[in-house]
């Protein structure tokens, strides 16, 4: 009886008793969710345009944050560092296309997926070698992001909104809008969609497959940079970010592999879900459940809607 009470009643009583804490939890979940969504967005971009399930997206986030901080530490001005990182990502996109994707063209999706795991290892090894493995702080102020936090008093307590989180949310929204416009209104964007639907068709329109891959990996790199800045600001810049990056996988499951809205909504579901669960149910299990709860949410989703939130039901044919 006691256990049932602890599971089904007590958490809700607590939510009602301390609404300010509840709102704080929602906000934290919301910000985390936005960032999960952004990582997932990187996956989606590449998957949509090239059918590659890019396992290296989380490490791209790490690489972006790490190289940005390292450039700055070497004495390069903050905004120049950003540009350097972008140049680096363009070079990386080009190399990946040249050395890996082009060699594996027409191969099965699983093989492309595996190759991105290999890429992940290469990046980890190289980045650690070059930038070292010591965690450092993100150069938030130097990039001109607002500092400090807002406190809204409510329900007898207060809810804190970190300015950097607010910035993250705003920028995430802006990025999503830009990408949505990019995909639906610009020629390149439509080209990217054409590639995913039908490689032959895209070629006949006169778009080079190779160029598109470079572009899309570069765009994914930009998304990774943005994600890296904000996530780096929330915690330290280190390789531990990669594990957090894997959370994008359950996000994808919920939102579907090809939907930009799906990525964001999935991110929010995961972010909010795991935060609330951690705070209200976590203590029952000895806390630290954030590490796996996201996957469980995704699993539950899969069992009931194997095609994800935004996918169509498949009719199997033989």
């Amino acid at each position, binding site marked *: 009886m006691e256990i049932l009470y602890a599971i089904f009643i007590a958490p809700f009583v607590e939510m009602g008793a301390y609404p300010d804490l509840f709102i704080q939890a929602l906000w934290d979940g919301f910000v985390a969710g936005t960032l999960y969504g952004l990582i997932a967005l990187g996956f989606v971009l590449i998957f949509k345009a090239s059918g590659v399930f890019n396992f290296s997206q989380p490490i791209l986030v790490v690489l972006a944050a790490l190289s940005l901080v390292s450039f700055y530490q070497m004495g390069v001005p903050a905004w120049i560092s950003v540009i350097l990182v972008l140049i680096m990502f363009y070079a990386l996109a080009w190399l990946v296309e040249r050395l890996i994707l082009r060699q594996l063209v027409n191969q099965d999706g699983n093989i492309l997926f595996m190759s991105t795991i290999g890429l992940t290892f290469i990046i980890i090894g190289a980045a650690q070698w070059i930038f070292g493995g010591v965690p450092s702080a993100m150069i938030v102020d130097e990039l001109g992001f607002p500092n400090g936090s807002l406190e809204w008093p409510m329900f007898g307590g207060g809810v804190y909104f970190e300015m950097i989180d607010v910035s993250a949310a705003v920028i995430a929204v802006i990025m999503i809008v830009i990408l949505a416009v990019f995909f639906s209104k610009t020629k390149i964007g439509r080209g990217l969609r054409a590639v995913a639907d039908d490689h032959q068709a895209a070629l006949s329109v006169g778009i080079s497959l190779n160029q598109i891959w470079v572009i899309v990996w570069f765009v994914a790199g930009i998304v990774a940079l943005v994600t890296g800045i904000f996530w780096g600001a929330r915690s330290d810049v280190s390789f531990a970010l990669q594990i957090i990056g894997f959370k994008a996988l359950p996000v994808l499951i919920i939102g579907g592999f090809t939907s930009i809205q799906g990525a964001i909504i999935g991110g929010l579901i995961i972010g909010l879900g795991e935060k609330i669960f951690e705070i209200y149910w976590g203590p029952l299990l000895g806390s630290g459940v954030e590490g796996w709860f996201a996957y469980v949410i995704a699993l539950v989703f899969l069992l009931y809607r194997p095609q994800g939130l935004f996918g169509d039901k498949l009719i199997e044919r*033989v």
Partner: protein
Amino acid sequence: MSENNSVLMEVKNINLRFGGVVAIQNVSFDIYEGEIRAIIGPNGAGKSSMLNVINGFYHPQEGEVWFNGEKRPSMEPYQIAKTGIARTFQNIALFKGMTTIENVMTGRQLKMNKNFFWQMLRYGPAIEEEVEHRRRCEEIIDFLEINHIRKTPVGALPYGLQKRVELARALAMDPKILLLDEPMAGMNVEEKQDMSRFIIDVNEEFGTTIALIEHDMAVVMDLADRVVVLDYGKLLADGTPTEVQSNQAVIDAYLGVPH
């Protein structure tokens, strides 16, 4: 064709829908023991869906399937396979990672039952079972004249032979009824003749009841004892090849249309 015309299988008032799309609409027909029954119709007429209903891959919203004189309860495909229904597929569904003999051996899966323990030791009952079923598969391979490709990975085989290996695999199940989904699609005239001969041989030698989907009317007229014609998911005609051929509705819907 057997003389006493006892019904082996009967589908009654089948209705199958996918979302809003009606695939099969109130179709009923029967299959006699030992006959070759053809299902024909234009593309999208619901022929393959019908086979999928018979072997339990699709569950119709309404309708009954009677087999062996009993109404079949709702079952999973693997359970239906156990009742003695085997099939081949329109787009060859062989196990690409295996050789011909291994593919045929998969047809014996259901008849094998030695447990994990013996399997691990591959000794005693497990190996005896393996040998026993291997022998049966070799007989089928011999029957269908695919001896020379026994150890070739099926992916490396030409299309016509792949179709024959698939038939061998289905036969290895010793089925009561064999469903063939366009067994001759994409074959040249010579391969079609070979395949027709094998289908007739199977029907005669093993007495297997056969239901097949086929586009080539000449082949159907040669092979089939009776023909069901479907069009837009509905039953258009049912009878001997000659009857069907002279049926005006069929001529209008199918035979008259060049394709």
